């Protein structure tokens, strides 16, 4: 750690903030954790509800294999201990979004134990500043339903579509010491989940949300009383909530007050946290093993399949891009930040190596540069993403190959790319149709050079008099005369000869 520690400046001196995150991540699955109802987002109210989800009398849970598998794969991705024996417990409390009167969760024997996540605090150079954040556990549990408060003056409405959807609760150690660290942790966790495919990470749809535990203390002192801000649903909001909550706590303590251990809510409009009145009750959840379910015993074959199906993870991939492909730390970081980007890039790379008959390492830099500048620039302009890019990795590789083998110049490549974006045509075809092929015909170029020099006798004089910077001018003029299609290397050679 080279960064200076994050401190809150109070009237009585500096304060340190201690942060732990409990992240609820919706497990990617077609059906719910304990019922066969669908999990898709945005359905009509109560249409994705089975009698099990509505906790009708006599209904019983049967676990979904895929949800268990995804939790195990996630655990493996953070190098966590996988518990071959785990079991589900009931967490008992009454609320209108909880039809059973209990949530099936895992308290005593979670499926995933201790693991860790390395966070990167400098986006431009990820390995420059890292910190390891401990993960205490991951357990699987049911999501609750949803209450709507604004549709009737005196009633709340209950929609159970989410009720019973599988969540992973990923509980960090209180290892974070600044809003930036918490933000980096959440970003990194999201990246890992999306790589693994165990959660889509769509925070705006509620697929990932964080309960933020914050306390403050004098640097190095005893841990303070913490508050828990529930259901914060973006990286930015998590950072804002911590900033607000930490300074609120400092204010309370410095005014001689005490921090109440309580549940709070983040108001994104005001950037503030406030106490949740409805959850004021001191809870006694009366956890006990769910007698409707048996212990979950995972065999070696199951674990092996989970391990085999794990993809290359973001850190490994980033390091490989730097080391084996020779990419800059920054490019490697950007290309690996999203699983989708890396997938696109690797397709581009593979195709490029194939058509150019080179190694991936040999085509990597040009591919990375083109993707990050040309393609990203175009997508930004069009308001699109890689997913709905009008250009495929195969098209991109073809275009890059045309530049590499001298068929077109970089400048012409930009033109071709614009045409590809508009018409969706294939690069080679566009080059042929529009006659954009680069020429190395020395006769034509010599004629153009002669014409340029003849038309700019004064500048030729100056160049020969020592103003060598004018060389670029002659190149530009020649290229212009050749409509950009001259091989720049040939132009250079012929110009030098003519000016000598």
């Amino acid at each position: 750690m080279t960064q200076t520690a994050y401190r809150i400046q109070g009237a009585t001196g500096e304060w340190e903030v201690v942060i732990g995150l409990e992240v609820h991540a919706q497990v990617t699955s077609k059906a719910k954790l304990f019922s066969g109802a669908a999990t898709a987002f945005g359905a009509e109210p109560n249409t994705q509800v089975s009698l099990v989800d509505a906790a009708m009398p006599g209904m019983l849970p049967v676990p979904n294999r895929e949800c268990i598998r995804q939790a195990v794969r996630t655990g493996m991705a953070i190098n966590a201990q996988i518990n071959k024996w785990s079991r589900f417990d009931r967490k008992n409390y009454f609320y209108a979004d909880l039809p059973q009167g209990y949530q099936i969760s895992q308290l005593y024997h979670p499926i995933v134990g201790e693991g860790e996540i390395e966070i990167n605090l400098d986006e431009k150079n990820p390995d420059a500043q890292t910190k390891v954040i401990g993960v205490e556990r991951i357990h699987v549990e049911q999501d609750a339903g949803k209450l709507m408060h604004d549709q009737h003056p005196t009633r709340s409405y209950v929609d159970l579509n989410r009720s019973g959807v599988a969540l992973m609760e990923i509980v960090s150690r209180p290892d974070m010491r600044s809003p930036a660290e918490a933000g980096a942790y959440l970003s990194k966790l999201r990246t890992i989940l999306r790589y693994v495919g165990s959660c889509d990470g769509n925070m705006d749809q509620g697929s990932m949300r964080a309960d933020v535990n914050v306390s403050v203390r004098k640097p190095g002192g005893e841990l303070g009383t913490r508050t828990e801000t529930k259901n914060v649903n973006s990286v930015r909001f998590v950072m804002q909530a911590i900033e607000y909550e930490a300074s609120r706590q400092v204010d309370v303590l410095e005014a001689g007050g005490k921090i109440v251990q309580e549940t709070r809510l983040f108001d994104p409009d005001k950037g503030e946290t406030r106490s949740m009145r409805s959850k004021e009750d001191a809870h006694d959840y009366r956890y006990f093993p769910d007698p409707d379910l048996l212990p979950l015993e995972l065999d070696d074959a199951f674990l092996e399949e989970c391990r085999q199906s794990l993809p290359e993870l973001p850190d490994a991939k980033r390091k490989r891009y730097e080391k084996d492909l020779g990419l800059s730390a920054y490019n490697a970081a950007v290309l690996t930040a999203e699983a989708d980007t890396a997938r696109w890039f690797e397709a581009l790379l593979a195709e490029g190596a194939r058509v150019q008959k080179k190694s991936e390492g040999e085509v990597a830099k040009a591919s990375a540069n083109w993707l990050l500048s040309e393609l990203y620039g175009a997508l930004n302009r069009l308001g699109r993403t890689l997913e709905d890019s009008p250009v495929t990795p195969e098209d991109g590789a073809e275009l890059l190959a045309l530049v590499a083998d001298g068929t077109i110049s970089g400048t012409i490549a930009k033109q071709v790319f614009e045409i590809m974006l508009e018409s969706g045509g294939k690069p080679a075809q566009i080059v042929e149709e529009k006659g954009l092929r680069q020429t190395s015909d020395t006769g034509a170029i010599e004629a153009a050079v002669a014409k340029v020099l003849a038309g700019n006798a004064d500048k030729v004089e100056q160049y020969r008099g020592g103003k060598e910077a004018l060389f670029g001018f002659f190149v530009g003029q020649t290229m212009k005369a050749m409509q950009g299609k001259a091989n720049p290397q040939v132009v250079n050679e012929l110009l030098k000869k003519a000016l000598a």
Partner: protein
Amino acid sequence: MSIDLQTVKKIASLSRISVSDAEAQAMVPELNNILGWVEQLGEVDVTGVQPMTAVIPNHQRLREDAVTDGDVRDKVLANAPQAEHGFFAVPKVIE
């Protein structure tokens, strides 16, 4: 361990069962009687004994991940004391 009126009221509240003072009062000896009797379990030597987890040896089966249920809103809402616009309705909750 013997429980008092306040404990009875706390248990009732946790159980979400409203009780009058008289009812709670009547429950004090009743519950103490029963709890006093079950406490004899404390005398059993359970050293090295694992709590029972499955009544009959059996393993937890796992379902395949397929949508086989749901889309039965009418059935789900059929017995609701109050259902409106496809929702269950409850007294307004302030969060």
